[in-house]
């Protein structure tokens, strides 16, 4: 497609329902009440000149370029701030208006560099466009007067420059930062002629509160805020619509290119998940796709101590297949398996699990969702009937009370966090349940009504206590429960017991009972209350129990089945939902149908022409333990660095080291590749053709911007390996895979590439009943029929603090980095987060003689690492916190083997540790051993 220029109607759509008829330049148009004259004119086909207005921001009325004449009204009102009225007759062009607009433009241009031909925004500048539209031919004031042409350029941000000499002070950037992003990092300082955009208090962008979401750059009508890539490369000439490959928000982006070179990624206004907004990762941190360390040729080696040897695809596939067949011949059919990746498309995941079930002839397939949201699948299926969140992201705009638990959206899911903050600024109330003082607890114009800083490991005690308040204070939605749920009485009797009271919970959670009671009342009394949760819920020994507890609470208060409510998992990776949907778990086929479902299994057997084992296969942790035992000896890993991301690194590496064959498909050599025998180069999201399914069940198209750099799509590699193992798949195009997914998966029955290209992203279920998808689940009834209340007794984790390990370590993410950092560490994002650090409470730090910046030793019963300390009251007494983005830190060296009782999701969030001043830095050899290996680095890409 040529460059996609999205129409800008000047002001946002009105939420008015009644239509108003107006006449613009003689053309009649019907628009919703409350629509601006500017927008009505644009809809009628008459674009009113504008500079400070754009339809992603509320009207501001400062530039005075959009003046119009309205019959019967004096003067020339600004069309952006004037709402239509019935029968209004508007004139957008007249000699008077033209004279006025030229006068406005003269003033702007008298203080603007006249360097259009060499300006980075040449051809993509609204000021330039408007000068042309108003017919500016001269500036009567000349250019010698006082001006801002010598204003310095701020190049401090790694991704964009701020050239104040080109600023027209339209405030679009300030308003975007305030209204869209919600960070309030920018302001207009000074008055009159001295007015200028200022990050923070006259700070460089990099040093300010700016989170580099790019909203300001996107709305800037000139080249004042400009992507460095545009400055370096030039303006793009064509667009490919695709989907971000970072978090589970799944933002739609316009990949803007010149030839085959990506110039910039611009968030797509019509993207249902993000509606034109972005974060620093999706907007800017895509350079890893062409990083010099990318591996583009298949490699093999007999032993992991051997150097890698580049080989042809044919040799690599034969090497892997021969190895897998040999292992199965010697150790049995179940001695090999594979892991699918949430960073891959639905099509790639579906084909890989099919390769394992049909080509390996076993069910030893699992997915990296095992270590993040597998409890969501178990908990929501048990209570509501399906393994997915209940709402669209837009639903939060109708929430009156928002309960955020075990999630840090401003860092982990920033684009959704911006939506949430907008709703909070409108007056919705917020309850945060989290050990840490996350940004949502208190940030500009946001303050949680209640923050319950529970101790890690006490989630279930707290949610039971909230349910206790709901039941004992008669806050139950009796009608909802009676009509739509079952097993309520047993559950209600359970939560009403004294041991589930807030006062009892306080002994294990540390949460003030009165504050908890108030939070529960607030949630239960709201017209619409919505729950949003993350890995702070799932990555516990009672992760599944906690998800059930959240569903219980929502059902008891009637907060399901409409907009503004629901139970909403915030998925970590772009395709966690999809990888689970596609039958990646060892016990179920696509669409969450258990292997024991004879009808479903038979359907797959007939279609695939193989027998499928009706017994579940091994989960990832079990594969690793079986490898230590020697009964599991070969593993295919699709895009996951388990040696860095999975808990108890020593156990993981011992298991990998014990296997006869490890085949890794990835972009870069990583911690896991140290133990691999075959490396198959993978494709970045810029090369993939397929779909991702985000946390709101939205199936979005991922379209290739360039050909697969390694020469093969990842699904083709799985087909080739299956073929070499004796099973034919025979797809020639990714759309055929989606067609098969739709044919065998009831919730995807109506989905095809053609349909997605036509409608944009759709939310499953998408079938005959809901041909355009289902934004809100469980509207007229639950997927399982009646919503099921399930008792959730609190069982403390076996991981306990001791005199030797008196602190609790909990882990999480930071905004600028992503998971194990394989992508973000290969971008300028490292400028913000060059290393993982340990947050420690001032009292705990003082007791240990630790100050900010000190190197400290972090030790658990499993292992130890060292990292720098940051003394901070963001963590409570007795709790320390770190991230796991850098292999040199290796946070999972200290995490344990404990996991969720139902799903084996690791208990990353609770590890008993000790912190002490480090007696020495890591040696160079130790640091090297932890660092990514890039022994074979092949420059790729344009």
């Amino acid at each position, binding site marked *: 497609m040529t460059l996609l220029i999205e129409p800008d109607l000047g002001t946002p759509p009105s939420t008015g329902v009644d239509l108003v008829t107006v006449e613009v330049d003689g053309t009649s148009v019907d628009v919703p009440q409350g629509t601006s004259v500017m927008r009505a004119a644009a809809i009628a086909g008459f674009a009113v000149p504008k500079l400070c207005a754009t339809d992603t921001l509320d009207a501001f009325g400062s530039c005075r370029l959009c003046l119009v004449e309205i019959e019967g009204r004096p003067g020339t009102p600004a069309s952006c701030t004037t709402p239509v009225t019935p029968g209004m007759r508007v004139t957008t062009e007249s000699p008077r208006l033209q004279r006025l607009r030229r006068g406005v433009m003269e003033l702007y241009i008298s203080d603007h560099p006249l360097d259009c031909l060499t300006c980075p925004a040449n051809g993509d500048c609204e000021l330039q466009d408007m000068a042309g539209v108003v017919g500016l031919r001269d500036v009567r004031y000349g250019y010698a007067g006082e001006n801002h042409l010598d204003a310095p350029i701020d190049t401090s941000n790694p991704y964009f420059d701020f050239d104040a000499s080109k600023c027209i002070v339209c405030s679009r950037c300030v308003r975007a930062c305030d209204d869209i992003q919600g960070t309030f990092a920018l302001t207009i300082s000074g008055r009159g002629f001295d007015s200028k955009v200022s990050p923070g208090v006259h700070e460089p962008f990099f040093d300010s509160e700016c989170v580099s979401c790019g909203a300001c750059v996107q709305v800037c009508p000139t080249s004042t805020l400009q992507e460095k890539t545009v400055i370096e490369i030039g303006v793009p000439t064509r667009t490919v619509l695709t989907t971000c490959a970072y978090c589970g928000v799944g933002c739609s982006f316009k990949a803007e290119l010149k030839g085959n070179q990506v110039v910039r990624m611009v968030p797509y206004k019509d993207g249902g998940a993000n509606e034109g907004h972005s974060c620093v990762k999706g907007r800017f941190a895509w350079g890893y796709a062409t990083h010099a360390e990318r591996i583009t040729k298949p490699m093999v080696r007999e032993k992991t101590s051997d150097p890698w040897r580049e080989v042809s695809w044919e040799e690599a596939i034969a090497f892997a297949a021969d190895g897998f067949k040999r292992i199965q011949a010697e150790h049995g059919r*179940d001695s090999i398996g594979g892991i699918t990746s949430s960073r891959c498309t639905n099509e790639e995941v579906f084909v890989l699990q099919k390769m394992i079930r049909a080509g390996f002839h076993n069910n030893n397939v699992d997915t990296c969702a095992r270590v993040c949201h597998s409890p969501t699948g178990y908990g929501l299926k048990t209570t509501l009937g399906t393994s997915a969140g209940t709402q669209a992201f837009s639903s939060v705009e109708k929430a009156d009370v928002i309960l955020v638990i075990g999630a840090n959206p401003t860092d982990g899911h920033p684009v959704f966090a911006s939506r949430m903050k907008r709703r909070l600024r409108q007056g919705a109330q917020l309850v945060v349940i989290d050990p840490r003082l996350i940004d949502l607890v208190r940030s500009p114009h946001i303050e949680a009504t209640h923050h319950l800083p529970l101790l890690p490991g006490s989630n279930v005690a707290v949610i039971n206590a909230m349910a206790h308040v709901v039941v004992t204070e008669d806050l139950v939605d009796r009608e909802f429960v009676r009509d739509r749920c079952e097993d309520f009485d047993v559950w209600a009797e359970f939560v009403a017991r004294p041991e589930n009271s807030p006062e009892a919970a306080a002994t294990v959670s540390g949460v003030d009972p009165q504050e908890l009671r108030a939070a529960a009342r607030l949630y239960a009394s709201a017209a619409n209350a919505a729950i949003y949760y993350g890995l702070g819920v799932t990555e516990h020994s009672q992760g599944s129990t906690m998800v059930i507890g959240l569903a219980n609470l929502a059902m008891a208060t009637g907060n399901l089945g409409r907009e503004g409510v629901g139970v909403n998992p915030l998925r970590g990776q772009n395709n966690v939902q999809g990888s689970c949907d596609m039958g990646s778990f060892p016990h179920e086929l696509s669409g969450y149908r258990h292997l024991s479902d004879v009808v479903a299994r038979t359907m797959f057997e007939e279609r695939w022409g193989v027998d499928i084992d009706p017994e579940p296969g091994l989960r990832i942790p079990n594969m690793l*333990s079986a490898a230590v*035992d020697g009964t599991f000896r070969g593993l295919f890993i699709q895009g996951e660095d388990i040696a860095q991301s999975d808990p108890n690194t020593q156990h993981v590496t011992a298991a990998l080291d014990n296997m006869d064959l490890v085949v890794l498909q990835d972009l870069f050599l990583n911690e896991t590749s140290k133990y691999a025998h075959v490396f198959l180069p993978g494709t970045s999201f810029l090369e993939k053709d397929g779909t991702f399914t985000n946390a709101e069940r939205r199936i979005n198209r991922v379209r290739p911007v360039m050909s697969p750099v390694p020469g093969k799509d990842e699904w083709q590699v799985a087909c080739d390996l299956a073929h070499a193992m004796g099973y034919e798949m025979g797809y020639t195009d990714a759309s055929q895979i989606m067609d098969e997914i739709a044919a065998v998966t009831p919730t995807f029955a109506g989905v095809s590439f053609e349909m997605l290209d036509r409608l944009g992203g759709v939310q499953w279920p998408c079938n005959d009943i809901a041909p355009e998808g289902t934004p809100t689940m469980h509207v007229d009834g639950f997927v399982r029929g009646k919503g099921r209340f399930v008792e959730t*007794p609190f069982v403390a984790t076996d991981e306990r603090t001791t005199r030797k390990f008196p602190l609790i370590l909990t882990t999480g993410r930071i905004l600028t980095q992503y998971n194990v950092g394989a992508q973000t560490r290969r971008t300028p994002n490292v400028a913000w987060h060059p290393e993982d650090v340990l947050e420690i409470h001032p009292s705990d730090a003082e007791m240990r003689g630790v100050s900010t910046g000190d190197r400290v030793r972090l030790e658990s019963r499993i292992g130890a690492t060292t990292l720098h300390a940051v003394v901070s009251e963001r963590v409570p007494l007795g709790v320390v916190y770190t991230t796991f983005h850098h292999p040199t830190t290796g946070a999972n060296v200290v995490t344990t083997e404990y*996991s969720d*009782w139902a799903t084996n999701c690791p208990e990353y969030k609770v590890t008993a540790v000790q912190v002490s001043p480090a007696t020495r830095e890591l040696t160079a050899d130790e640091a090297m051993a932890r660092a990514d290996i890039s022994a074979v680095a092949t420059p790729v890409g344009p």
Partner: protein
Amino acid sequence: MTGLVQDVLRMGNQISAQFRHLPGPDAASAVANHISLFWESRLQDDLFALVDDGDLDLDPILVDAVARLRTV
């Protein structure tokens, strides 16, 4: 004790603890059902072996669940 057997003992006892609130037969039945739905056969075999060996660390509910699994 290493590898899967260690997992099996920990996981089996953990599951039993989650269903302990249920009346006796129901608890064992729930544990057996969970293991049947989600455990690969070599985990179940290791669990059976632990019971046969009379491992004293096994939760009684788990032992009862194994008896039920063996009748399936």
